[in-house]
């Protein structure tokens, strides 16, 4: 039926549409800076005339949905990129710490201590019975051992810090996973009940990115609105409203493995290919551990070679040279010490090659610095260490570049998503004006209809 009442109905629809649009605009403006907030839009549609009447000449307006304006595919990429960024950023952070340990540029690092150690032997060879030279050598050796221990200790503490972070990250990951499961439940309920779940969806996609920042994941959105989350190799983390908790377990070497809480004997370290956890595990078990191995190898070769040559000489009491460095069969750098006997009495340094107190053995030990003992007979101890420092510098620079690159890829993706999902206050202002005008127009329409009715009634 067409008529004045119909005009009033249409005006009512227009009021409602403007009002809801204004509400959506206001929520957009309020959340202009909220991270993860996705711009919303009230989708208006003309009411099909068929619904009103067979031969109606007018149609009202209705709000079909409140749309979340976002790109599902960019979102997918961003979740993946979060893992890359997480991985690269943790590596960069750790590398910065490692680099601080190996800061040899100010001339008081391990390289310099080694040089001083060799020099002290040479000085002793020039005056093999000199107490000053002997004490100076014992000190230089002590400093060298301390420096090795410090370097190794710092590297080890980087490892233990990473280990602690792994535990904390697993706890954090468990939190986000169970939050995702909770949100899944609410979203499924909301969707089936026809409630607007846009804010929940925003929260969930933030959580997905956060999760991906820790560990690389795959996820699948189901028709009911839930997402299922899997590890990169397909192990379930979240399914519907339930999540699988992860845990850490001592791997027997004092470090944690990541495991499923309900299957604590099977480490899933290898299943983690990216994300902060991967970065931490990789740095702890491969990179830092590798540097530590190289440092240990260097220290061990130094200890063994010096000890072997020292044993060929004779001390000031004409004893066969004992161990210069201790302990024997040590891991290398971490527990390197000058032998207690030599620390207590530098006369026990075996500087002589014969029992007549010459300095030839000291010279022979000093000659170790020019022997190619490392890298299968290709480099000297000093070269090896310089190469290690160079390697670390290279790795740090590389990690910095990777982190910058991954971050800038993420920025590009964010910008791409932001283009679609972000709130532009300018735009919202224009919308505001538009909807305000619509509201005024609807009022005018209602007024006109009212006048028409009045006129009609006055006729009676």
């Amino acid at each position, binding site marked *: 039926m067409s008529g004045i009442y119909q005009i009033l109905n249409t005006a009512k629809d227009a009021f409602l549409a403007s009002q809801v649009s204004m509400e959506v605009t206001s929520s957009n403006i309020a959340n202009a800076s909220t991270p993860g907030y996705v711009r919303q839009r009230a989708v208006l549609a003309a009411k099909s005339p068929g619904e009103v009447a067979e031969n109606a000449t007018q149609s009202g307006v209705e709000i079909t949905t409140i749309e979340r304006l976002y790109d599902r595919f960019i979102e997918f990429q961003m979740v993946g990129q979060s893992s890359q960024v997480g991985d690269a950023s943790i590596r960069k952070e750790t590398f910065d710490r490692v680099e601080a340990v190996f800061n040899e540029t100010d001339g008081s690092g391990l390289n310099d201590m080694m040089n001083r150690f060799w020099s002290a032997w040479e000085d002793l*060879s020039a005056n093999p019975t000199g107490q000053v030279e002997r004490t100076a050598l014992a000190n230089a050796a002590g400093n060298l051992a301390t420096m090795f221990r410090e370097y190794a200790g710092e590297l080890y503490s980087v490892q233990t810090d990473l280990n602690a972070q792994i535990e904390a990250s697993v706890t954090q990951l468990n939190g986000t996973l169970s939050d995702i499961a909770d949100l899944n439940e609410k979203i499924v309920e909301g969707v089936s009940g026809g409630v607007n779940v846009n804010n929940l969806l925003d929260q969930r996609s933030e959580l997905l990115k956060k999760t991906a920042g820790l560990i690389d994941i795959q996820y699948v959105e189901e028709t009911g609105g839930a997402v299922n989350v899997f590890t990169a190799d397909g192990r379930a983390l979240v399914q519907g409203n339930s999540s699988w908790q992860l845990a850490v377990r001592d791997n027997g070497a004092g470090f944690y493995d990541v495991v499923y809480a309900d299957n604590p004997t099977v480490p899933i370290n290898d299943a983690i290919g990216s994300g902060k956890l991967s970065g931490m595990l990789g740095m702890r078990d491969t990179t830092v551990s590798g540097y530590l191995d190289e440092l240990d190898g260097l220290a061990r070769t130094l200890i063994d070679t010096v000890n072997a040559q020292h044993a060929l000489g004779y001390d000031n009491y004409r004893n066969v040279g004992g161990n210069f460095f201790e302990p024997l069969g040590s891991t290398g750098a971490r527990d390197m010490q000058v032998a207690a006997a030599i620390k207590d009495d530098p006369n026990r340094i075996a500087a002589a090659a014969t029992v007549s107190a010459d*300095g030839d053995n000291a010279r022979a030990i000093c000659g170790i610095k*020019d022997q190619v003992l490392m890298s299968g007979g290709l480099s000297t101890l000093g070269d090896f260490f310089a190469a290690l420092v160079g390697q670390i*510098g290279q790795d*740090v620079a590389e990690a910095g570049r990777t982190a910058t690159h991954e971050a800038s890829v993420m920025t590009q993706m964010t910008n791409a998503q932001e283009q679609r999902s972000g709130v532009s206050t300018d735009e919202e202002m224009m919308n505001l004006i538009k909807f305000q005008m619509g509201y005024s127009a609807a009022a005018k329409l209602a007024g006109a209809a009212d006048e028409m009715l009045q006129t009609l009634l006055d006729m009676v």
Partner: protein
Amino acid sequence: MLTRITNNMRFTTIVDNLNRAQNNYSSLMEQMSSQKKINRPSDDPVGATRVLDYRSVRDSVAQYGRNIDNADAWLQLTDTKLENIGDLIAEAREAGVNNQSSETAQVLAQNVGSLLEEILSLTNSKFGDRYLFSGSATAGAPFERIILPVANSANGFDGCVYSGGTYTGTADKSYTVRIAGSGAPGTATYELSDDGGTTWSAAATVPASGTLSLGDGLTVRFGDDGTTDLTAGDLFYVNAYTGGRTTDARIDTPRAAANNGFAGTVSLDASSGTYGGDRNRTYAVKFVSGGGAVGEADYRVSSDGGKTWGAIQTASWGSTITVDNRLGHEVVLSLTSSGPADLLADNDLFFVNAYAPGVYSGNGEDLTIATGRGSQMTYNVTGEEAFTDRGRGAVDLFAALESLKTALENGDREGVNAQVDRLTTAQDSIRQYVAEGGARRSSLNISKENYQVLDDKIGGLLSETEDVDLEQVIVEFKMQETALQASYAMSVQIGKLSILDYLG
């Protein structure tokens, strides 16, 4: 394509740009304050490696420089001492040449005696705590006052004569041995005077060993290295000084290293002969394979003071170890444990010094220093080569001086002339060592100058690699400063722009 620019995008971009400008700015600031391009290895990994390399090389170069200084100082002192000794030898020669009348001979003999004392003290010169002329055994004095038998120049016997034993007399004494009946030891007879030939003992047979006792613990041994036997009328003079050292081969008391596990004693076995080597040697015995009981423990023997070792000996050895097995010249150590539980431990070390006949107590080892990677230089002159008959001149300086003195005292004109000739040879040989020392010093100085140049070059490379080019950095810094200021200004301007300003 027209893109939507949202608030977040605008501000993120501004913040990113500001961060970048700040980073550049602070990195340049760090370079300016540290004056270094490389502040951490990642700034320039290759450069950082090179810097470490350069530093090590510079440290080595500085060390070589110190070595060279050390050796140079040693050589300089050696040169001075050798020159002084040369001058004193010249004076002694002078005395021999001036020997014209028997009145002056005694005075000249006294002169030679005091010159000998002076030379002795010069040959025992030290560099710091170390004896210059002891070889590598720098802890012990190379020469001592000696008791030297001097043969009369007219003697038939042409073998060596050594003094032996230890003189226990309380005053200096002059012994004279006169051969009364010709023959080899065991046949020949001799008379002995201990007052300079005034009174003589009854004739007695020279023992077959060739060693006869003079009294007060002092002995004389006639060597079997000559061609003519002792001949009647041969005269031998021995000036005995209290505390003087005899010249025959000798073996010190064996000693044990301080840290030995073995608590028993080590001594020279009675079966040891007279040391027959022609150089001073240190024999050492080291126990290996975990040690063990006396007579059973495995050991190795070294005849060069422990530098190189012989094969491991595993056979049972009773209580004695022969470290030198030349027939008649054996050196045998005897070990006695202090109780049944006293075992030899791994690395237990025993050693004994054996001295060849003569006056030298040091060894013949060189002292060397590294003057470069893989290159070494010997910087000492051993007393053995400079002052004994084992050296280049083949003249025993002290024997020549002692002989000259004795010949003067005894009016042996032939003997005096012979000794003057020997001293000339000794002097020439010492001059050669002085010249060689000079050559070594100048080569050291050349090395040192080369190192100076190398050090400068590497210093330059180091600076080029790690030091900032200040002008360049300042210019860049100014540029970054301007950029940062522009960023600030722009951020504020753009950040403020909004449609709100235009809405009524």
